[in-house]
């Protein structure tokens, strides 16, 4: 690993490779995940799902299931109180009139054990009236296509449109020397955490509800739970257990959460629902396929002149929040590199398929696959090295994009230079075609300082310092395994001046913790980190006041360093901080050393024209991939992947690497193997054997470079890095395939049989050279 250090300022904790605080428990099997909890009287839940992609529900008969001994509750739309939920309120926890995809929930049971629950499901009779189904979004938009949501006032199954235009597109086209055009598609893929969803719900005898759920937008979850089920949200406690991976799959409230609560209410017993692996694929949220028709132009000097995109996002049967992946995809079309004119015309379309959610990267891998292939196609058409072309067009610090994204710090140039040099790009790109080897690059822009999708983008933090000197941080944000707890503890330790091992982090219980939007959009280090830092500042001031009183010295003369109170910096007379505050804390009429803060980044929601600075900082990164293609079998092997990311400041370099390496391998999976193939609405491979998740033997060692740009708004200069790693491999690998065999991949995953087909059809770029008027394909 290499770190490009922008500054050399010394910190005692920040910048250190500190192991995750929860790692010792995790490596000894002591961590108690939701399914590991042992709760007296716990019932097991199971869901009756639709086997049909599109059908009217004629009748549901649950009488035989209800009569089965050991069954404590059987619910369906006809015997519960529920309202529709999701963006646009287009979904019901239990479907009342229609099912719109395989896996749709029609009934559920709670029983004393899993075997009886399964028997009860088999005893539920559902009579369906089958309807014509559509699983292709382009077909769904045609006149006469099956109507998936009759209750909505929409046409062509289009649930939303995201349209944007800036600059003089016609003039930009005229000024272009070269224009590239093409189509680019992505598959339905799954976040596929190793732990499936596990939800536990329990009403106490007074009606107070406690839900144990791996959700990471906890406070909005509580609100939506109350709104949808008609509960009093002041009487709901959400506890988040340790989460066995999410990647966006567990981000917000879903059908199974409502159903577990409804079962607990009906059974008046605690109920647990654990999705099976198959249900995790068919009944939990996926990454939406997005289809791009893109044109990009450049002038003879190598400046990008315009981008023009027609986009169809296939979000499946319901919106969830997956409809908003277009927001991120749009940012990439308009704002990756300096693009004076751009247009995005897009439709989010309903189809009879499992629906899209907010999976890591949220629209950006799909958009970057299109945009960054055209970047290399353009550079090649102009005879300019693709990395040199990118450097020429790169975003810069202190600039504003046409969509109003205010870029404060930008390490895109440094990232490009790092991967260029470390991969041997200049000497090796375009030289290995006889070995069917090639190099390809890609870069991204992504939110790195929060994302104002909702009214607030804030997070609260509280700090308590007790008589032992233990520093307790209570953060609104949660840990998903990414290491945010450790990063927050490091920020607090650095700010107060104590060793990191005296800091504890509590972040899993809505009764205790302050509000937060939740973990999404690579925002935790930035937003929760700033909140923790502000709270720590307050706690430190109170700590020094307490010490001043005990020591009889003015607080202004005191500071704290590595847990020692120093007077005017004098180490010889230093006093341990806990000793200095203890007497004051335990006396009569004492006060508690406690501090709280709420941080909401200085950003704005985008207006109706999609203009606005949604994030207080933007993350950038560059990858170079090297591939080897077997032209006979079509197998692509990624033999090298160099990744450089602008992280602002690496609070914990080991954690930053972990996010990038993990994201990059997930991205390699997306590029080459991962997809949920669907035929007539049916999943062909809803299991981990066929899904194509990379094993240790598949990817190369990821070579990581951390670029530090010290963002002025980020905590110690840090920017978000949770999603960066996954965005680039599909684009970089596609470009490497083009370098290796001269074929232009139009879709991923780039499965061997597709590659063979592309080679046979000799699929290349469509380039119009306006100087000569020649078109080549």
């Amino acid at each position, binding site marked *: 690993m290499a770190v490009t250090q922008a500054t050399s300022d010394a910190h005692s904790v920040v910048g250190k*490779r500190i*192991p*995750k605080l*929860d*790692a*010792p*428990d*995790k*490596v*000894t*099997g*002591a*961590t*108690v*995940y939701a*399914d*590991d909890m*042992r709760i007296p009287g716990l019932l097991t839940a199971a869901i009756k799902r639709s086997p049909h992609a599109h059908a009217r529900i004629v009748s549901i008969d649950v009488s035989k299931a209800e009569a089965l001994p050991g069954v404590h509750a059987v619910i369906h739309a006809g015997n519960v109180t529920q309202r529709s939920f999701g963006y646009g309120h287009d979904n019901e926890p239990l479907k009342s009139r229609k099912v719109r995809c395989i896996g749709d929930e029609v009934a559920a049971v709670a029983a004393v054990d899993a075997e009886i629950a399964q028997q009860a499901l088999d005893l539920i009779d559902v009579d369906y009236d089958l309807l014509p189904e559509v699983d292709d979004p382009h077909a769904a938009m045609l006149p006469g296509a099956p109507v998936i949501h009759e209750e909505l006032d929409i046409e062509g199954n289009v649930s939303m449109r995201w349209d944007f235009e800036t600059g003089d597109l016609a003039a930009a086209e005229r000024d272009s020397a070269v224009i590239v055009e093409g189509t680019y598609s992505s598959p339905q893929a799954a976040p*596929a*955490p*190793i*732990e*499936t969803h596990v939800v536990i719900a329990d009403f106490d005898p007074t009606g107070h509800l406690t839900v144990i759920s791996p959700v990471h937008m906890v406070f909005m979850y509580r609100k939506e739970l109350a709104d949808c089920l008609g509960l009093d949200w002041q009487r709901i406690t959400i506890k988040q257990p*340790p*989460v*066995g*991976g*999410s*990647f966006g799959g567990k981000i917000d409230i879903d059908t199974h959460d409502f159903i577990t609560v409804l079962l607990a209410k009906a059974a008046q017993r605690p109920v647990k629902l654990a999705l*099976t*692996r198959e249900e995790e694929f068919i009944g939990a949220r996926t990454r939406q396929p997005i289809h791009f028709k893109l044109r990009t132009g450049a002038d003879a000097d190598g400046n990008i002149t315009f981008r023009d995109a027609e986009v169809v996002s296939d979000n499946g049967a319901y919106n969830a929040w997956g409809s908003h992946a277009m927001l991120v995809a749009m940012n990439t079309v308009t704002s990756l590199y300096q693009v004076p004119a751009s247009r995005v015309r897009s439709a989010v379309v309903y189809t009879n398929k499992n629906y899209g959610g907010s999976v890591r990267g949220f629209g950006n891998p799909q958009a970057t696959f299109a945009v960054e292939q055209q970047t290399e196609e353009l550079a090649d058409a102009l005879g300019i090295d693709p990395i040199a072309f990118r450097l020429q067009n790169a975003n810069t610090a202190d600039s504003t994009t046409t969509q109003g994204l205010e870029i404060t710090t930008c390490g895109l140039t440094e990232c490009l230079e790092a991967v260029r040099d470390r991969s041997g790009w200049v000497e090796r790109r375009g030289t290995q075609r006889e070995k069917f080897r090639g190099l390809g690059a890609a870069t991204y822009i992504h939110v790195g300082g929060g994302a104002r999708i909702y009214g607030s983008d804030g997070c609260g933090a509280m700090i308590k310092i007790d008589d032992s000197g233990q520093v307790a941080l209570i953060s609104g944000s949660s840990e*998903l*395994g*990414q*290491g945010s707890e450790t990063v927050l503890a490091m920020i607090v330790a650095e700010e107060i001046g104590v060793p990191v091992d005296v800091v504890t982090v509590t972040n899993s219980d809505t009764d205790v913790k302050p509000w937060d939007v939740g973990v999404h959009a690579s925002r935790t280090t930035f937003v929760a980190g700033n909140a923790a830092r502000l709270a720590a500042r307050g706690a430190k001031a109170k700590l020094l006041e307490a010490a001043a009183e005990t020591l009889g010295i003015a607080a202004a003369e005191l500071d704290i360093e590595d847990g020692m109170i120093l007077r005017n910096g004098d180490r010889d007379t230093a006093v341990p901080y806990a000793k200095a505050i203890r007497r004051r804390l335990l006396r009569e009429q004492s006060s508690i050393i406690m501090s709280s803060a709420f941080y909401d980044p200085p950003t704005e929601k985008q207006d109706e024209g999609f203009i606005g600075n949604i994030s207080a900082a933007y993350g950038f990164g560059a990858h170079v991939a090297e591939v080897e293609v077997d032209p006979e079998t079509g197998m692509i092997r990624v033999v090298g992947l160099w990744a450089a990311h602008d992280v602002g400041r690496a609070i914990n370099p*080991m*954690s930053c*690497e*972990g996010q*990038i*390496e*993990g*994201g*990059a*391998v*997930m991205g390699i999976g997306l590029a080459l193997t991962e997809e949920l193939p669907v035929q007539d609405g049916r999943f062909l491979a809803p*299991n*981990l*054997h066929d899904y194509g*998740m990379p*094993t*240790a*033997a*598949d*990817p190369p*060692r*990821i070579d990581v470079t951390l670029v530090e740009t010290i963002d002025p708004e980020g905590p110690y200069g840090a920017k978000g890095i949770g999603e960066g*790693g996954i965005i680039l491999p599909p684009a970089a690998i596609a470009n490497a395939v083009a370098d290796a065999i001269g074929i232009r991949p139009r879709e991923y995953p780039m499965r061997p049989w597709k590659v063979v087909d592309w080679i046979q059809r000799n699929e290349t770029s469509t380039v119009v050279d306006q100087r000569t008027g020649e078109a080549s394909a």
Partner: protein
Amino acid sequence: MKLSLTINGDPYRENVESTQTLLGVLRDDIGLTGTKWGCLTGDCGSCTVLVDGRTVVSCLQLAAQVDGSTIITVEGLAGRGRTMSDLQDAFVRHGAAQCGFCTPGMLVAAEQLIRDGIEADEKAIREGLSGNLCRCTGYNKIIDAVVEIAATRG
């Protein structure tokens, strides 16, 4: 039926159903929840345990078939008590555990590879651990930890 098992050095006599898996007995009957399940089809490796020195995906192993066996789970890798083996410590130091859900199975599989004398070679260890899926780390840091311990114990 009644089974006699030695698990992490302790003797257990368990009444089990003939259809119960070893995973079910470990987690539900004995309460050793360190061993995880991610698929119940033998694909993810999260439920890996050692049965008489062999790695076994316990979700596909009927408990009745391992009567009399010596079993080691993640809780028993360091001997007894809440201590860490050299390999567990290496996982912590290298940042090899993120969400931690694959970690127990990964550690058990890696422990057996090392006991079987695998070379401290990245490629060999990547192949050796290819039955255990990790979704968080991208494997770099897991491989680093295992290579280090394979070398130091080697």
